């Protein structure tokens, strides 16, 4: 019998897209950023600054103040003062007006926010423009509406503000996470001390500028920049009533330990290693899109990324083949280019972590496949990567990589895939693809994950609660559930 050759599709067309880098002339970036405390930009007590760079070309974007304990203390005092004297006394409808104003200002300056988000974090402009910034504004709009309706959200439970909230956010969605934290806190009547991540502080500081412009009473929102030590100063400050943290599970555990025995309320949104499950009756071509969106969105720097793919054995070859072909059409490169699908890895440290896992995966015996795309010489980039023939006991399957790396396993029965999907310390999200509604409902009740997407992935909306099970954290952000994290009853 003649050897059958597999027909190959060729995506190396001579007709290529025109580069379309977004203009950066219209943005307004200062050389140096100060701390935003009590409605004013103030220099840090010790006068220390750190640099924030553009991960796509390793150039310095700005110097940013580093807050120490003295600065954090100042910020907490300002927040407490604003809470006691202004914010807690203001009628709720008035609070709502300020939040609406912030939302509108953010929409007006959406382009500038999008470009800065992309410059500072490396995410493609398509995502910052179409997802991060509009969603962030929507969070403010949504929670502004709740400000004077809390009694209706929790009937007969007399909801009351907590006081001062200390909020620490990650580098993967800098502006969006700031919105997720600040909007519900303000709507519930709290004041805020927020610390953005040290690699991506710029959009939070731009947010400080529009907060100033909005006329929000001084001290209601304070933004202090810095690294882990600054965060620790917030967590350990005695006059803070609530800590909200989004970030790694390791740091989350440290925070939980350090506030044990205090009266501080806590919500944690931590890591994940989501199961993305494709049944053989799924709409395969759309499922492949879902897989791509699930793991390569924001370079895989997504806590709810669908990083563990489970494909039913009967369609595994077809799904993998289609996935490989789809990888060839993904464009990796300049995050400011509108054509770019996958931008820059957020930092050198993160790129090293990803490379470490690629090495581990190969050593564990999994088959690594990367797309053939070219990547820029300068900056931190990683080709979209698949690991085939992985098993549940591989470290690359068990640990969160936080990069564009997908591990692929096959499964045979529904029971098997539920067991494997849940067999992980994390439980933030999951995805299910099948044409059969009953199968979806069966799985959604059995998967131990805070969010389960059916026949789609990575869909976010301010009205929808988001949060994890197990080591992915506790508490919910978004929707009515997100209010209760900032209230006492």
């Amino acid at each position, binding site marked *: 019998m003649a050897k059958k050759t597999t027909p190959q*599709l060729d995506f*190396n067309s001579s007709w290529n*897209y025109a580069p379309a880098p977004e203009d950066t002339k219209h943005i307004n970036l200062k050389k140096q950023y100060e701390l935003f405390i009590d409605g004013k930009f103030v220099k840090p007590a010790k006068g220390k600054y750190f640099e924030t760079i553009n991960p796509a070309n390793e150039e310095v974007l700005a110097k940013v103040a580093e807050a120490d304990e003295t600065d954090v203390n100042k910020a907490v005092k300002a927040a407490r003062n604003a809470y006691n004297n202004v914010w807690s006394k203001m009628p709720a409808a008035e609070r709502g007006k300020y939040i609406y104003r912030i939302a509108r200002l953010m929409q007006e300056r959406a382009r500038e926010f999008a470009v800065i988000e992309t410059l500072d974090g490396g995410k493609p402009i398509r995502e910052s423009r179409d997802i991060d910034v509009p969603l962030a504004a929507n969070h403010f709009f949504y929670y502004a509406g709740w400000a004077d309706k809390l009694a209706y959200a929790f009937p007969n439970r007399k909801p009351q503000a907590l006081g001062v909230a200390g909020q620490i956010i990650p580098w993967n969605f800098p502006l969006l996470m700031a919105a997720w934290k600040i909007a519900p806190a303000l709507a519930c009547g709290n004041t805020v001390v927020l610390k953005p991540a040290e690699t991506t502080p710029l959009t939070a500081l731009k947010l400080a500028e529009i907060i100033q412009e909005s006329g929000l009473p001084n001290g209601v929102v304070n933004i202090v920049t810095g690294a882990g030590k600054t965060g620790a100063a917030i967590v350990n400050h005695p006059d803070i009533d609530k800590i909200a943290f989004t970030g790694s599970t390791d740091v989350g555990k440290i925070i939980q330990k350090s506030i044990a025995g205090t009266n501080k309320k806590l919500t944690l949104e931590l890591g994940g290693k989501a199961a993305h499950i494709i049944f053989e009756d*799924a*709409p*395969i*071509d*759309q499922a492949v899109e879902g897989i791509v969106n699930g793991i390569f969105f924001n370079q895989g720097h997504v806590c709810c990324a669908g990083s563990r793919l489970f494909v039913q054995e009967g369609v595994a070859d077809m799904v993998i083949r289609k996935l490989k072909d789809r990888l060839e059409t993904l464009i990796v490169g300049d995050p400011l*280019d509108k054509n770019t699908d996958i931008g820059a890895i957020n930092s050198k440290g993160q790129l090293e972590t990803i490379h470490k896992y690629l090495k581990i995966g190969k050593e564990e015996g999994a088959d690594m496949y990367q797309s053939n795309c070219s990547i820029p010489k300068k900056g931190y980039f990683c080709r979209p990567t698949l690991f085939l023939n992985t098993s549940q006991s591989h470290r690359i399957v068990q640990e969160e990589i936080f990069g564009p790396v997908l591990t692929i396993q096959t499964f045979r029965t529904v029971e098997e895939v539920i067991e494997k999907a849940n067999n992980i310390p994390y439980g933030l999200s999951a995805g299910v693809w099948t044409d059969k509604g009953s199968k979806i409902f069966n799985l959604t009740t059995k998967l131990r994950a805070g969010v389960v997407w059916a026949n789609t992935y990575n869909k976010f909306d301010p009205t929808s609660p988001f949060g994890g099970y197990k080591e992915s954290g506790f508490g919910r952000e978004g929707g009515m559930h997100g209010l209760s994290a900032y209230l006492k009853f």
Partner: protein
Amino acid sequence: MTKTGINRDYSHTPAVDQVGVEERCARFATRSIKKETKVQGLKLILNMIDLTTLEGKDTEGKVKQMCYKATHLHDILPGLPNTAAVCVYPSMVKIAKEALKNTSVKVASVATAFPSGQSTREIKIADTKFAVDHGADEIDMVISRGEFLKGNYNFVLDEIATIKEACGKARLKVIFETGELSTLDNVRRASEIAIDAGADFIKTSTGKISPAATMPVTLVMLEAIRDHYYKTGVMIGMKPAGGISTAKAALHYLVMVKETLGTAWLSNEWFRFGASSLANDVLMQLMKEATGVYQSSDYFSKD
């Protein structure tokens, strides 16, 4: 016994998720196409057009004019290609063939009681043979949508296979009239049936029903073509027809082909636009790229 000897169960064809298809299509429209990329794309589009006139009022004179246009799109601008084909009713095939002799432009004829397809098998065969005998290089047939919607899939399969036989050497394009099929699942099912029955091309619409070609419908058909290619290595052509009247929309279709099927399909051998007004919009864009300014539509010949 059916013509194909197959009696297949088409009640379970691969699932299609409409929301996912629409999301994917939206992404095609965000690719940046300008300057050299745009000029290259626009010329490719011109070369993929089946310049079409399918009206009751068509005359020999009108068809002759259109045939001249197919080979002289806009002579003031050098370096333009011909269109891929002209598409006419069977009664006009002879005129078109004569007008286009010694050119690369093919003559396509609609057949099988176009556009409704509401006639007998015998008449459809005769219609096809008439067009082929008069020199048609390509036949654009319509499927019996009524039979399809009744679930009589093997009737449709058999019908297509029969017409394919009547075509002889002419390439067969099978029109689904997707605007009447109602769901993307049906579009996928029709694609499977047509490809199994021997279609050389699958085509969205007659242009007589709205909606005609849309990006989601075209994507579903391209995916069926891709699956067939994966399985067999055999290429099938695609022709969206009707409703694509702007250069910008046509460029989005090219992006879709490029990212779904790849380079091999980016030629008029495997991809066509069925359109009458598209050519002039493309020409206007090309003149704009060449001169820097938009010109009045009066500078572009209508037929």
